[in-house]
């Protein structure tokens, strides 16, 4: 039994990363109908920035993270205004997607030139990422607990913003009907920019919290991005809670199939399962056919 719990926990930890990135992707897509292909690289840069402030500029750990998040938010604001906003006005979907791919390439190369390709250890206070507890036969890593707590806090904050703030109201309105929202006097560019920033901050948190797990290396968040993308599709791409649930489900699928499936199929099996799910429910697990799922 402990075996199952241990595997489920391992899958859940991976799932947290997919869920957060899935959430970040769905947030932007649902509000602005834009697929942000730079989300993974942006999240990774947040991790590098937090490391840079702490390890190279001798900032305290928490302050370094704060600075990294401020830079992530500010950088995203600039990116949205300079690259995405002018294309949104043209009203064509494809150029924006291409633009986010361009932004991804640019940021990846800047990151490579700045920090190089060699992986680095992201040190956390007290090296708590190296502390393990034994609870009966169940083994719990201290940093994994931090990952879990961070995920729940992040999801709670996002939930609060969406349900309790004016920005959230605007996001909901645009998610339901963009034209109606505009007629109601909600300013599209304001909702869009703050959705981008919020999405980038969620990605940034993911990049930082998973840096000690995956090590800081070129593109380390791009793998998470791809899985987050699959999670978002699984969830229906129009449901925030679906994106999160899709991520957690994918993490579990991976963990259990690698453990028990034959080696030839283990890696491919989660993708096959997602494929089958999408054949049965092309609009995803958590979105109704016409995409009128509530935020």
């Amino acid at each position, binding site marked *: 039994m402990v*075996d199952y719990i*241990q*595997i489920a926990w*391992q*899958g859940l*930890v*991976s799932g947290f*990363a997919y869920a957060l990135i899935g959430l970040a992707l769905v947030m932007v897509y649902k509000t602005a109908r834009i697929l942000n292909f730079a989300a993974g690289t942006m999240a990774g840069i947040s991790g590098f920035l937090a490391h840079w402030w702490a390890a190279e*500029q001798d900032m305290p750990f928490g302050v370094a993270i704060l600075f990294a998040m401020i830079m992530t938010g500010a950088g995203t604001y600039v990116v949205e205004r300079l690259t995405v906003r002018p294309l949104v006005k043209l009203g064509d979907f494809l150029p924006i997607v291409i633009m986010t791919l361009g932004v991804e390439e640019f940021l*990846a*190369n*800047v990151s*490579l*030139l*700045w920090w*190089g*390709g*060699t*992986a*680095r*250890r992201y040190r956390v206070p007290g090296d708590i*990422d*190296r502390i*393990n507890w*034994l609870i009966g036969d169940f*083994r719990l*890593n201290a940093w*994994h607990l931090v990952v879990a707590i961070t995920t729940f806090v992040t999801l709670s904050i996002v939930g609060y913003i969406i349900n309790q703030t004016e920005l959230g109201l605007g996001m909901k309105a645009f998610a339901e009907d963009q034209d109606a929202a505009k007629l109601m006097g909600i300013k599209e560019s304001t909702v869009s920019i703050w959705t981008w920033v919020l999405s980038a901050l969620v990605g940034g948190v993911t990049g930082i919290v998973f840096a000690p*797990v*995956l*090590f800081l*290396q*070129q*593109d*380390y968040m*791009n*793998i*998470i991005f*791809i*899985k987050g993308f699959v999670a978002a599709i699984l969830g229906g791409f129009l449901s925030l809670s679906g994106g999160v649930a899709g991520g957690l489900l994918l993490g579990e699928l*991976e*963990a*259990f199939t*690698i*453990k028990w499936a034959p*080696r*030839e199929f*283990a*890696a491919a099996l989660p993708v096959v399962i997602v494929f089958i799910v999408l054949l049965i429910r092309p609009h995803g697990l958590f979105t109704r056919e016409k995409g009128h799922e509530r935020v």
Partner: protein
Amino acid sequence: MKSKLWKLLAIFAVLGLVAVGCGDDDDSSGSSASESSSSESSSSEASGSSSEASSSEAAAEECELARGVTDDKILFGSSQPMTGNLAALGEQAVLAMEVTRDRINEGGGINGRMIEFIVQDDAYNPEKTVSNAQYFIEQEGVFAIWASIGSATLKAALPLHDESNTPTLFPWAQDLSFYDVNNHPLFFSVNPPAYAQTKGFGNYLVENFGTDGIKVGLMTINSVDGEQTVQGYKDSSGGDLLVDEQTWERDSTTYGPQILSFIDSGVTDVYVGTGDTQFAQFLLEADQLGLDARFWGSTGTISANTIELAGDLSEGAYGVNVISSATGDKPGLNAYREAMFAAGAEDAQISTASLLAFTGGLVLEEMLTLAGECLTVESFVAAGETIKDFDTGGIMRPLNFSAENHLGNNDVIILQVQDGAWQELVVGQE
């Protein structure tokens, strides 16, 4: 902080230069053999009518230089994982190639020709490696593909190299099929196949730890390369001790499930065929989940960065290598480190990836020198096949090539992390 700003400015400057450079492509890439011959002729005319000049002219007329070779340069291409989770290895290899190029060029080149190379990123994606090969051969007209990384990637591109008469030189790639001289007569290597490495590991394990109570687990990449790695172990004297086979994918984010399987199987020894970053992550997760075993890493795991990333968890880990420890004390290794540090290498870049590229560079220099002034693919290959007892200063045992064997080195070297550094335990052969 300021230096970072300068770096950012430098990035823009480089982007600008690339844009300008692209505009010049049409003019510069057409350095064909006929052009080389004609420029050689005209320079001979200018030097007067001595008999030496006449014989040189005659030789030039007889010699049709290979593609990518001119009077004053030899152009190579190299496909490397410069992005993705093997980017560190690509970066290390390219640095060693730069060190080799600079050493040769600062010494006046080889037969008056400078070395130049172009690197293209393939992100360890075979499709990109193929398009890189097309670019190198069809657009840039390179002489050879040098020091590329990756078995799966090279396997996809090698037919293109062979069809276009382009030598494939000293890659870090180890698929068994590469070493068949009849099928790949232009392939030269100092890196034994993965099959040989795990076979050497199995033999060493039984010789040194016996068979009593030993249970072995293997974790290899889910590819043909991984299958050959497993087969090599099965064919070793410890083959019967294998109790658990696991695979990993390039997009793996955790090795937890594989580790839990190893725990279930009760393994005492785990061989992990990955890069250094993945091995460090594996050691970290094995500690988290309580896998109590001896850990054995493949060639790619042997770098200072494994120790930096995994810290104390790397202590006692073994490495199965084809080359001496990059941090060892031998003349060749000392020269390698001196050159690498002079070129700006960080400690983490003193690794198997850079050392293999550096060693391949030593052999490449010898082959080009022996091939003489009239450098053709045929003269180059023939020169390579004559190399015997080539001394690398202790990096590898003396290298030998022949018409039947283009793999100069067949060593399997066992290393172990002791007191925070890789130490050489034994040098043997498969």
